[in-house]
């Protein structure tokens, strides 16, 4: 089974890059607040970093051999 962090990471990497790129090309401030905050660039960077970390962890997890299923009694 695929390591779920991989598709999640790639998704946010793509969306983050899309938003950050759009923020660079079309630097719109957040509307109605009158402040110089480029929402797309800033949040796009946040998403890109998150996506990158998830991709790395997912890629490493994918290479690890699968855990053996362990049936334990309930623990309290």
């Amino acid at each position: 089974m695929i390591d779920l962090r991989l598709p999640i990471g790639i998704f946010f990497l793509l969306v983050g890059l899309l938003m950050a790129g759009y923020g660079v090309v079309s630097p719109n401030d957040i509307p109605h607040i009158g402040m110089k905050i480029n929402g797309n660039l800033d949040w796009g960077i946040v998403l890109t970093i998150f996506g990158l970390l998830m991709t790395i962890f997912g890629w490493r997890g994918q290479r690890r051999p699968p855990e053996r299923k362990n049936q334990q009694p309930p623990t309290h």
Partner: protein
Amino acid sequence: MLQHLLLLATAMAPVQNAATAAASAAQAVPHALIHLAPIDIAILAVYLVFVIAIGYITGKGHQTSEDFFLSGRSIPAWITGLAFISANLGALEVMGMATSGYQYGMMTANYYWVGAIPAMVFMGVAMMPFFYGSKVRSVPEFLKKRYNEGARFINAITFAVFTPAISGISMYAMAVVLQDFLGWHFWPSVVVSGLVVLVYTFLGGLTASIYNEVLQFFLIVLGVAPLTIIGLIANHAKAVKHAAAGMHESWLAAATAGWGDFTHWLDTHQVSQGKTMLPGSMWLHTWMGTGHAAGNTLQITWPGVVLGLGFVLSFSYWCTNFLVVQRALAAKDMNSAQRTPLLAAFPKMLFPFIVILPGILAIPLLPHLVTGGTVVHGKLVSDTHTVNNVMPLMMGTYYPAGLLGLGLTALMASFMSGMAGNVTAFNTVVTYDLYGSLINPNASDKHYLWFGRIMTILGVAISVGFAFWVRGANSIMGYTQTIFGVVNAPLIAVFLLGMFWPRTTPWGGFIGLLVGTGTSVTLWILCMKGHPMAHFYKHGTTSAFWNALWSFCAGASSTILVSLFTRKQPVEQLTGLVYQVTPRGEVSATLAWYRKPLVLGILALLATLILNLLFW
């Protein structure tokens, strides 16, 4: 879903909550129709491609019905934990919580901090060993093992009837938002989104649903969280007005200053609720004024919150509803199953800050929103400038193109995660507990796998059909959701006695289920018909809490009474189902502290206590 069902009772009460009376000079109303830019469409398209791809990838290799319905019991705890929250996080909850934040403030957080976390902890520590350890495939099957076929049938049929209906209502609500804000037609919105969910649940079954729920969880958090931050910044900008024009400030500095400006605004303004003016500061408290109903925004009293919401309603939902329990049953081992609701509790307790807080922050920013919509020829015609739409309105006002696409995709994701959760739970219960139990008990596993896929199509078809039905007759929406909530309210009595009192007999459980449900429905009808009791409670939420408590008492007492006069089961039949006669494993010395359910449960309760104290 629990939160929404309960809030609906509030909405149906005759309390008119007008928008705040604060001066409405400040902000212009956003356009009713939001125009999406190509970047917004691109983000939505990437999302749709990914959810279908995940369905395709996870569907490869499904050979048995258990692979399809329970993911082969192979999923790690962090995934089932996030899916546990996400399946519950439908569009109605995300948007409904913001609405409730606008109307009632942080008091709404009680639905999380009292109405969810303690029950989730109890589920993980005390109840999950019996669900997972007994190897049942569904909650109704547990009732069959512990009690009898009758108890299973009542639980299964109720669940199978209401689950796709609730999903259809969620679909309807989402399509209305898309219609109002984006100008998309109703039927393509419903059919296309239904098809996307159908494709990935049909291909990948529960695994696809769970995997997508985790993606949707992150998308909802990362798509909606900026609204809280920007809401704070907007409050800061509103406070400093012209001085802010062209100002350069970091997100963090502006948001931090915004919290101070916002709380100052609430401290110095009165906010109206119907004809009553209340201090704005009441919108930031969860317990203040709950000594009497008139002293708080939600008109509730603390005994009702603690016993009705915190015990009966929340335990019935979080500990017995198959929609959420199914996620834990897909876990790879007992420890992972126990940790599923416990790991879910930590992000869950922080959700008020991204779904409720934006609604509260909107009070000074969008002070003119009204309650309800317009009724034309007996049908509710949606009005975009109502409190119900506070979240999309906030997004439309403050999200630039790009961020707006992310936010709307997050709302779409919340709708899809809720719907897929309902559909995968529906197909499992219908296949195992109705078809496999009553109609065709001796079929091959391959046949059940085939039947489950057909039920997936049927579940989506019923949801879509129900969405169109609700569109034609709006009043059924409220009744369907409320009745489902009412029917489920007393379930926990029968489960607790079944799991922790060996003397409980099959007849006791069966009669207790009938009496508890009957009491709950009767009390609800009496309140709806204007019985003096309803006037005593004064408010729909209060009556929902107390009715649940009385139904619990009726269900529990009848179970005990009938059990004392009927033949008890041999001990060997109860092993694995009842606490006293089930061998308990020792805590492994090698198990790290963060894997021990009891430690995680205590930490979750302590963190929740701190949040309650912070917003007392």
